[in-house]
């Protein structure tokens, strides 16, 4: 237990003041033991690294949850919402251009197609940027399908899976190092009555045991 002379304080600035105030006593034997006040610095480092890591933690955590559970919530694609509907349009005659114009009017599409492809006598493919019309000319049906990007998850997932490569690899590596620092510094931030050997040890062992037990029983 720290006595008054070696008591640690909460902030590096205060630690500095404490050191100044710990003037040498006239009796050398009574001089307080000089102890490095490292814990306040550790807490400060943990706090500041934690601040910087907040944004990336949200990106990785939300993207991770989405990738794990998106199949439970939606159609299984974390990045895009897909839709598809079949529209009965009846028999359509004329050349490809006339068919396209008629379908654009019928379906209320203002966009100009970027491709019109005659796959066969009965099948016409009309492609827009995020939308495709698959026209069955024999049956007079149109499958109207496409994808809409999800607002946040598409970008988060793109970053999480490091699809961009290059510079993001360095950012991801630095973030991983920051997480290691946060985990390690977190062990020693608050001394507690028994240090790391009390409740802290139980919780650390529990945290280590979770992956170990899982791998033991269900691992490769």
């Amino acid at each position, binding site marked *: 237990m720290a006595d008054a002379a070696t008591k640690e304080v909460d902030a590096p600035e205060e630690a500095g003041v404490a050191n100044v105030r710990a003037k040498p006593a006239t009796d050398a034997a009574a001089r307080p033991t000089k102890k490095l006040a490292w814990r306040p610095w550790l807490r400060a480092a943990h706090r500041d690294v934690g601040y910087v890591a907040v944004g990336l933690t949200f990106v990785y955590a939300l993207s991770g949850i989405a990738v794990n559970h998106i*199949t439970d919530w939606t*159609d*299984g*694609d*974390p*990045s*895009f919402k*897909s839709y*598809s509907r*079949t529209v009965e349009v009846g028999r359509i005659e004329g050349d490809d251009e006339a068919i396209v114009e008629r379908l654009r009017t019928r379906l209320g599409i203002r966009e100009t197609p*970027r*491709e019109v*492809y005659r*796959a*066969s006598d009965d*099948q016409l*493919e009309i*492609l827009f940027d995020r939308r*495709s019309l*698959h026209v069955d000319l024999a049956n007079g049906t149109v*499958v109207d*399908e*496409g*994808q809409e990007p999800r607002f946040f998850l598409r970008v988060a*997932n793109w970053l999480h899976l490091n*699809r961009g490569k290059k510079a993001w690899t360095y950012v991801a590596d630095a973030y991983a190092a920051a997480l290691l620092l946060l985990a390690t510094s977190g062990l020693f931030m608050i001394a507690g009555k028994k240090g790391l050997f009390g409740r802290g040890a139980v919780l650390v062992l529990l945290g280590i045991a979770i992956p170990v037990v899982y791998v033991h029983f269900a691992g*490769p």
Partner: protein
Amino acid sequence: MSRRAFVRSAMAGTTILALGGASYVLASTDEEKKARATKRPDGRPRLPPDQYLLKRIRPMGGTVGDPSPGNFRLKVYGEVEQPFTIDFAELLRMPQVEQTCDVHCVTKWTVLDSRWTGVRVADLAARARPKRSARHVIFEAHAGYTANVPIAEALAPNVLVAHKYEGAPLARAHGAPVRALVPDLYFWKSAKWLTGIRFVAVDQPGYWEVRGYHNHGDPWKEERYG
């Protein structure tokens, strides 16, 4: 609330959630029980272990490729005598196969009786004439995605280069205009937005295979992870 009471409440809540989730995951419908009890012609159950049923395939993401049939080119090359490239129209002129089969995703869903139209990889291989040294097939797709399959399994009659699903042209989310279909391996082997079929002498683990997934991916052996 005291700290002790908070910890107790948190533990109780976690336990209830875990039990609820487990019972949800373990719940089996009559359809699933029937699929487990039914055997395929090869003697294996229709529903591989630890899979559940869906009605339609899920897109499952991936870097979206170009859905344009006009831009589509499929390159068949590598350890072959006659490498070639075909476009969409030429693919449609090849012998077409309509096939009903079950597909199994490594994320544990299975779709029974999915209907596909396409060209057999074996027919494309017959045109390319693989050399004796060819041992594996690499399905190549948009953005560098690859999936490796042993040649004997890639040339099985139910392995297709597919352009229709459930009677309609392949949707964008499912790899339009053309994807691979390898129904007897986990579905990540069925590369979407297919661009090439490469025959190789030495196996080359693909996109997911080098990221911890199994090199083979047999659903009945639960070859999910490497």
